[in-house]
């Protein structure tokens, strides 16, 4: 899918062209958010769990190098082969070399946002390797040649009729059939054949335990397990921040993850991979790709605590109404908007501005990342470093002047109210972005300053 060099606002505008679809997208995600609330409120200890998770992750960041070494040592002792990749390119090459060395040209892959971040699929394809995404949502967007639009619900932007048409074209299902049960079964049959015939399986990693060298993969569909347990070679890609100190800490994270993501008490499968099967291989690729740099940014490092539940997306009023693709990065929404500028400030300078700073993301985050504060701080860094869009810079300078000159401020307010009353067409037109997809409210007769002056006198 070619999105050109458009920024969030331009891509959101495209998404907003179809109003009923925006409303549907908005309501569906809010429904998921409501399920999250219900699951969280059942547990009186919910806030203690968030605090415990946050403390564990803070401890991880403070001891990351030690935990990584401990994990590597334990994993090796378990018979797992550990690789280190400084960046996306090295990760992709490690994966390719492993496949190539085993004479494998076709792999199944379960959900891994890291491989999306590294653009692994397109890289492997250019090397002549076929990759089949096996998570149903990911398979759908793969067939549609689109990236996932949500980290937990990859094809949340697609209507079932569109999915029916995609399956009709690629899997030969009857034209016009858009029944979720029927389509899911068609994918089940098609992917079973893939699981049974592919010799290599890739997975992501949700948590890796330093103390034991094991790693945990969570799915609802069972696709990670179908791939890994039938393959000769299992390659698991993980960001270095996925480490946790002890096995016991999994209790905290597994209680929080699915409840925050979809409102389920736990994912259907929480699979703990410790040792390879007899005669088979497990490889783990530890990937940095900018994370060690982010660790050095005091204001932004705790974005590395993220466990990829997606709760911040489901609750975000901007995400729900602009769609995941408008963020033009592997991880959309509020968390994506504080992660992406770390990788490339110029390319992702627009994202921290794609927020109302309402703070809802911070409130639902299971590991207590101060997401909206970081969005605000990124804006300051981006403007200071000269990455803010020119129009925004001019507008900000204008605002600075207006706000620091009370006379100008009062005049501007008066003029604005007069224009909106007497000549609304001057602002109510296509040139004013505030009028897009919304009506302006009626302007008040007086400013708060004028109102206060008058009422204060009357009351004294």
């Amino acid at each position, binding site marked *: 899918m070619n999105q050109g060099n458009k920024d969030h606002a331009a891509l959101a505008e495209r998404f907003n062209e179809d109003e009923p679809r925006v409303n549907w997208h908005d309501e569906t995600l809010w429904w998921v958010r409501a399920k999250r609330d219900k699951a969280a409120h059942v547990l009186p200890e919910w806030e203690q769990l968030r605090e415990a998770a946050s403390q*564990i992750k803070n*401890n991880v*960041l*403070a001891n990351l190098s030690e935990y990584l*070494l401990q994990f590597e040592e334990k994993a090796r002792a378990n018979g797992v082969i550990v690789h280190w990749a400084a960046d996306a390119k090295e990760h992709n090459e490690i994966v390719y070399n492993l496949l190539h060395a085993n004479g494998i040209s076709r792999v199944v892959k379960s959900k891994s946002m890291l491989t999306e971040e590294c653009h692994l699929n397109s890289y492997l394809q250019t090397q002549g390797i076929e990759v089949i995404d096996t998570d149903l949502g990911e398979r759908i967007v793969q067939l549609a040649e689109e990236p996932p639009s949500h980290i937990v619900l990859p094809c949340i932007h697609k209507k079932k009729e569109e999915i029916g048409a995609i399956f009709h074209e690629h899997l030969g299902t009857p034209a016009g059939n858009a029944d979720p049960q029927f389509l*899911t079964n068609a994918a089940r049959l098609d992917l079973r054949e893939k699981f049974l015939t592919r010799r290599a399986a890739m997975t992501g990693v949700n948590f890796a335990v330093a103390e034991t060298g094991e790693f945990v993969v969570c799915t609802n569909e069972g696709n990670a397990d179908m791939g890994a347990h039938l393959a000769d070679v299992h390659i698991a890609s993980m960001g270095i921040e996925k480490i946790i100190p002890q*096995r016991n800490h999994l*209790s905290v994270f597994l209680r929080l993850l699915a409840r925050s993501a979809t409102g389920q008490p*736990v994912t259907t499968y929480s699979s703990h991979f410790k040792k390879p099967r007899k005669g088979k291989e497990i490889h783990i690729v530890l990937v940095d790709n900018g994370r060690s740099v982010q660790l*050095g940014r005091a204001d932004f490092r705790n974005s590395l605590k993220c466990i990829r539940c997606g709760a911040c997306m489901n609750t975000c009023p901007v995400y729900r109404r602009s769609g995941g693709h408008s963020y033009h990065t592997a991880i959309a929404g509020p968390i994506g908007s504080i992660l992406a500028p770390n990788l490339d400030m110029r390319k992702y300078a627009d994202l921290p501005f794609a927020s109302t700073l309402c703070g809802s993301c911070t409130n639902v985050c299971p590991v207590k990342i101060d997401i909206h504060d970081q969005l605000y701080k990124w804006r300051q860094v981006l403007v200071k470093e000269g990455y803010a869009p020119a129009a925004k810079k001019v507008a900000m300078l204008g605002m600075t002047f207006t706000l620091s000159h009370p006379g100008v401020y009062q005049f501007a307010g008066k003029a604005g109210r007069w224009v909106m009353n007497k000549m609304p067409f001057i602002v109510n037109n296509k040139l004013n972005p505030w009028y897009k997809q919304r009506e302006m409210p009626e302007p008040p007769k007086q400013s708060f300053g004028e109102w206060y002056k008058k009422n204060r006198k009357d009351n004294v």
Partner: protein
Amino acid sequence: MNSKEKILTAIKNNQPAQSGLPELQSFLKPDTEVLEKYINVLTAIGGVANVVNSYAEIENIIRQEYKEVQRIISLCKELSIPGEAGRDADAHELETVGLAVIPAQFGVAENGAVWVTDNILPQRVLPFITQQLAVIIKKENIVPTMHHAYKNIGNTDYGFGVFIAGPSKTADIEQSLVLGAHGPKTMRVFIL
């Protein structure tokens, strides 16, 4: 410098100040209604619970409920259903299994999960590849929460371990819940 050294050096230079680990003991509260809770949660996530008094009763239910099933594998010695799936067999061959009956170490009341390791499973893929899954747990082995679960697991050694909570599911098509994504379409838990 190779990548490992490069990454570790960068991390060491950037690691924030020391920060302690929380105590988790306070989460280990006892709960007396674990059986009822377990059954309610399992039902809510699409599973079926049968409280039974004997292995004979389990056999009866299996005979009634899975009449159509061609191939059944049991890993439970107490049942007179043939157990196969040897450790050296090819995992792919399990593709035709209609029902797998497996004992689990314990259940978790708060989320309906059971804990199974490859100390029980001759082939790791069995509980995923089977069309339907039946699990046997002992009533006294139901714990309240995941904190209790990991206390149970302790530092036991395994090659693979998994919490299974209900049938395989997906809601990727317009958030419509469908049971039986890639794994079992049903999950029944016998509570003995």
